[in-house]
């Protein structure tokens, strides 16, 4: 947990890797995943780097892998995930893997090619037999005059020269999408000299390339004249038709058909044999490919890192630079020594000074990851800045719960999260790909705490699905009120609303031990009571939260040695915040404690006091809360003003030495910057405090919405029938509706909205008091898979 407080110390380190052992060293570093390498050759373009040849060979290999993978996928097989820990192979293994891959790919290509050509032949045969078997009647040959008139009225058999011309045939098949265009083009190009008949095949044929079943249009064209024939052949070529020889005699056709069927049977046998062989080859690929893929990917990554190294003057070693946590340095040293011992010269790593801001490294575990994620989504912390995440672990679920307070809803959320937490190690849950599910799953610990805190605040608000529970006896006694004021039966019948007066003895026995007294749920002024309570609670929580933020800034100033900021920034900030809003909180609590039921009628108004404080005025009707309050008010205001003034003016003077070191110091800019910062903080205090009122608003909205749901759905159902049977039948759908709406609206929708507001309160109101978030993450070179 200590490392969560601020980012770890990160140092710029330099590696001296002996050329012979550089590859092994980097691959070991990749297995460790502790260092982020810096590119020392940024000015050299990608293809002029040292190891570009090796990278290219890896890429070449990956290309072959893609081919193999595609083949496996096309065969409907899945590649099993590689097993065990696979290290990056030594460079000499690349050649072996390359050879084996090439051999495998060649084999696969051959077999696949065989299979393709066999399939194409088979397809051709099937098409041919389909064309022949289609039974296009031969209009021209049989009856040159009758059949034509219907199809092609333009063709008037002239009975002259054409009669003597021989009628020829072209038969073939074309894809159905192109049939219409083909027919039109034929008609336009050779009108009058041909008759074409098109027909769809009855059964679907497998496409030789894609393997998908498709129907074809077979056609039979009869034409006169050789020139037309050439034209037709060209046109059919252009539409990629399959054209087959067409024997005119019926018997001849039948004979060919039989022959074709015989051939296709034989072909199918050969094809089956080829496919068996193919599946053998694919099985080998399935076995070998996954480990190779991982290995080569690692190898390529290593070479890409080596490309970022510069070469030492003597060419004996490579020099790499990188960021790494100081605490990991011994581990690095050990690993480097181990992996370079073979080469005789050992690799060396040592820290070097640097002026750049190092990256931020905060190690998380599965519990803290989601909270760190919330902070990082706003901005990754500056190097070694105070990290808000550890506090977020508690404050985030708490502020959420303030807005979501309901025992029932909180419990449901808690149980849902608990189920996810308990099942987190199951492979099925881990492997789920649904994006929404993954979002919820990665925030399961967050949800768990949110649910837990909601149960707690639910008890405080005394609400469970909007109903109050009576765990302890109520602190109010109606009986006492009735006897004391002597309510008669007639009085009770006339007055539907009765007032319980706490000033009357015995009516108010004492505060409820925990949370809101259940009697309030019966009262008509329930809402005004709760509003007053929740509003003040929001202010108190908000001011506390913001003050905490300002105090966290102290740790930043101390750590970075900016003592002047401690006195000239944090101190005035604290005085201003606590002087104005801390005082307000004090007034609220003081009034809660000091004003009793007896003096309630004459209780002073905090609101008027607070406004008067700024206006330097007094109102005679509003009595002071405590003696000497007016003087105190003036004093506090003076102190606050003085602090603002002092802070605004002194800040810049102190800012000079701090900023002057690096950038050119421009007084006007610093002045402007600080003035803006001062104004921003002062205005921010007011608007941020007001912003915390969203706690009140959302918790009110949530309570009212669940109240409405109960009153409009469940209560209606409960009132519907007095008889047992009716009630039972009616309650089933009513309860289903109630449960569905509770989950959809109150849990999911309201939950998301409360989450959003809690997020805003943390990002804006809390973190702007101390957190810059202008850093960048350490992204180490690692072979580990991302979650």
């Amino acid at each position, binding site marked *: 947990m200590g490392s969560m407080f601020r980012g770890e110390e990160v140092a710029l380190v330099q590696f001296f890797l002996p050329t012979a052992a550089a590859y092994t060293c980097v691959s070991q570093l990749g297995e460790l995943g502790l260092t982020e390498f810096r590119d020392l050759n940024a000015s050299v*373009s*990608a*293809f*002029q780097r040292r190891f*570009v040849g090796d990278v*290219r060979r890896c890429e070449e290999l990956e*290309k072959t892998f*893609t*081919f193999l993978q595609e083949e496996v996928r096309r065969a409907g097989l899945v590649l099993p995930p590689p097993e065990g820990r696979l290290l990056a192979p030594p460079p000499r293994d690349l050649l072996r893997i390359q050879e084996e891959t090439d051999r495998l790919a060649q084999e696969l290509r051959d077999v696949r090619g065989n299979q393709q050509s066999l399939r194409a032949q088979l397809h051709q045969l099937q098409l041919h037999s389909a064309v022949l078997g289609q039974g296009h009647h031969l209009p021209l040959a049989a009856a040159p005059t009758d059949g034509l008139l219907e199809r092609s009225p333009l063709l008037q058999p002239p009975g002259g020269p054409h009669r003597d011309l021989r009628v020829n045939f072209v038969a073939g098949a074309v894809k159905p999408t*192109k049939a219409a*265009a083909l027919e*039109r*083009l034929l008609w*336009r*190009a050779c009108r009058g000299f041909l008759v074409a008949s098109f027909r769809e095949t009855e059964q679907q044929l497998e496409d030789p390339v894609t393997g998908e079943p498709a129907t074809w249009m077979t056609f039979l064209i009869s034409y006169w004249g050789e020139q037309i024939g050439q*034209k037709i052949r*060209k*046109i059919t*070529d*252009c*539409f990629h038709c399959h054209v087959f020889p067409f024997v005119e005699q019926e018997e001849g056709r039948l004979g060919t058909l039989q022959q074709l069927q015989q051939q296709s049977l034989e072909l199918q046998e050969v094809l089956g044999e080829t496919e068996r062989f193919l599946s053998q080859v694919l099985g080998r690929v399935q076995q070998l490919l996954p480990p190779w893929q991982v290995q080569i990917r690692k190898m390529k990554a290593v070479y890409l890192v080596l490309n970022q190294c510069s070469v030492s003057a003597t060419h004996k070693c490579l020099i790499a630079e990188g960021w790494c946590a100081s605490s990991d340095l011994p581990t690095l040293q050990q690993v480097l020594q181990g992996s370079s011992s073979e080469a005789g010269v050992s690799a060396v790593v040592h820290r070097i000074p640097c002026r750049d801001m190092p990256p931020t490294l905060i190690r998380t575990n599965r519990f803290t990851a989601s909270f760190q994620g919330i902070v990082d989504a706003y901005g990754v912390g500056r190097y070694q800045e105070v990290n808000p995440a550890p506090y977020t672990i508690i404050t985030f679920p708490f502020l959420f719960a303030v807005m979501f307070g309901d025992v029932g809803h909180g419990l449901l959320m808690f149980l849902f999260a608990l189920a996810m937490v308990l099942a987190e190690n199951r492979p099925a849950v881990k492997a789920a790909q649904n994006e929404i599910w993954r979002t919820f799953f990665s925030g399961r610990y967050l949800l768990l705490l949110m649910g837990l805190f909601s149960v707690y605040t639910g008890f405080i608000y005394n609400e469970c699905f909007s109903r109050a529970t009576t765990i302890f006896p109520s602190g109010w006694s109606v009986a006492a009120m009735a006897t004391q004021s002597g309510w008669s039966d007639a009085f009770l019948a006339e007055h539907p609303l009765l007032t319980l007066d706490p000033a009357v003895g015995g009516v108010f026995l004492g505060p409820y031990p925990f949370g809101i007294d259940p009697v309030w749920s019966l009262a008509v002024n329930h809402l005004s009571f709760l509003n007053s309570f929740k509003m003040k609670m929001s202010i108190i929580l908000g001011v506390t939260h913001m003050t905490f933020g300002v105090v966290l800034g102290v740790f930043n100033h101390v750590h970075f040695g900016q003592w002047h900021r401690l006195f000239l920034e944090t101190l005035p900030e604290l005085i201003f915040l606590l002087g104005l809003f801390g005082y307000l909180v004090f007034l609220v609590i003081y009034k809660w404690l000091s004003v009793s039921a007896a003096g309630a009628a004459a209780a002073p108004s905090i609101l008027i006091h607070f406004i008067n404080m700024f206006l330097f005025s007094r109102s005679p009707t509003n009595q002071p809360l405590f003696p000497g309050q007016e003087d105190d008010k003036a004093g506090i205001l003076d102190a606050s003003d003085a602090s603002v003034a002092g802070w605004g003016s002194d800040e810049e003077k102190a800012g000079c030495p701090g900023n002057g070191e690096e950038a050119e110091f421009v007084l006007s800019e610093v002045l402007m910057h600080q003035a803006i910062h001062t104004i921003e903080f002062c205005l921010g205090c007011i608007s941020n405090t007001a912003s915390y009122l969203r706690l009140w608003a959302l918790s009110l909205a949530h309570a009212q919405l669940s109240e409405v749901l109960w009153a409009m759905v469940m209560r209606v159902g409960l009132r519907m029938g007095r008889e047992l049977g009716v009630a039972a039948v009616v309650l089933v759908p009513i309860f289903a509706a109630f449960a569905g709406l509770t989950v959809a609206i109150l849990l999911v929708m309201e939950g998301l909205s409360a989450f959003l507001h809690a997020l805003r309160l943390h990002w804006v109101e809390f973190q702007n008091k101390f957190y810059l978030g202008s850093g960048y993450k350490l992204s180490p070179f690692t072979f580990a898979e991302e979650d």
Partner: protein
Amino acid sequence: MLEGAEFYFNVDHGYLEGLVRGCKASLLTQQDYLNLVQCETLEDVKIHLQTTDYGNFLANQTNPLTVSKIDTEMRKKLCREFEYFRNHSLEPLSTFFTYMTCSYMIDNVILLMNGALQKKPVKEILAKCHPLGRFTEMEAVNIAETPSDLFKAVLVETPLAPFFQDCMSENTLDELNIELLRNKLYKSYLEAFYKFCKNHGDVTAEIMCPILEFEADRRAFIITLNSFGTELSKDDRETLYPTCGKLYPEGLRLLAQAEDFDQMRRVADHYGVYKPLFEAVGDGSGGKTLEDVFYEREVQMNVLAFNRQFHYGVFYAYTKLKEQEMRNIVWIAECISQRHRTKINSYIPIL
């Protein structure tokens, strides 16, 4: 369309305009060209292109890599983008896209007919055809023997059909006639496209009309230049000039009479737009050719088209810029593969 199309433009075409502007941002930068020029082999070119928006478009090419493979893949990529635009477009933008493809279709038809004349196999020529100008009946072009045949049998259903009105003839298609056919088709195509843009009005007209005017004038100049020393008569030459340019009518009449390059230059001197272009042309020994100068001017106009919003010109400009970029890459790749590095820097920079 109504006045002030800005109000409605995004309803129909906003998505595509956003997309095309994003694509435009992916054009190679000056730095990329500097890096490309430094490459030693085509493999280096490939590695460098991988770092740009081309990505690993050459990843599945078998070795050895050739310039034509790069060219084909680049064209395919452009074609994919264009198809995407086209498939998602609404009228009248889709008509605009159809007009854009027409020029490629004309080129393809002419290419195929020339191939048929020289008895080359169709497959070989098909590979050279621009994928943007592909259409189903294309391969059947070689069955036609006269332009009217071509029209009636093959092209009547394609978008090219309207451009045929001026060139129906029964002449057999020899090399000269094919060239005439190409220019006539181009002339009526440009005029039709110009009319379409003009009628469309709005920013589209303001952007597209100057570009098309320039295109028309460029064709007129190039036709004149190419006709020197051929059997083409001056009257015939005049019929080939597209009439939608700035040169029309006076300049075209003068151009028709021009007999050598200097006379052409004198015609251009009358026009403020073209004078500087002709001045930039180097003499025979070195410097830029007229074509390069025209290309540069075209690039300039196309780049400027992106400065205005709510018009179709961006699609035209993007396609043309991308084509220029492809020409540049091919030029550089050719220089590298032929080890002829002296002229490698004479690509047309895209500003």
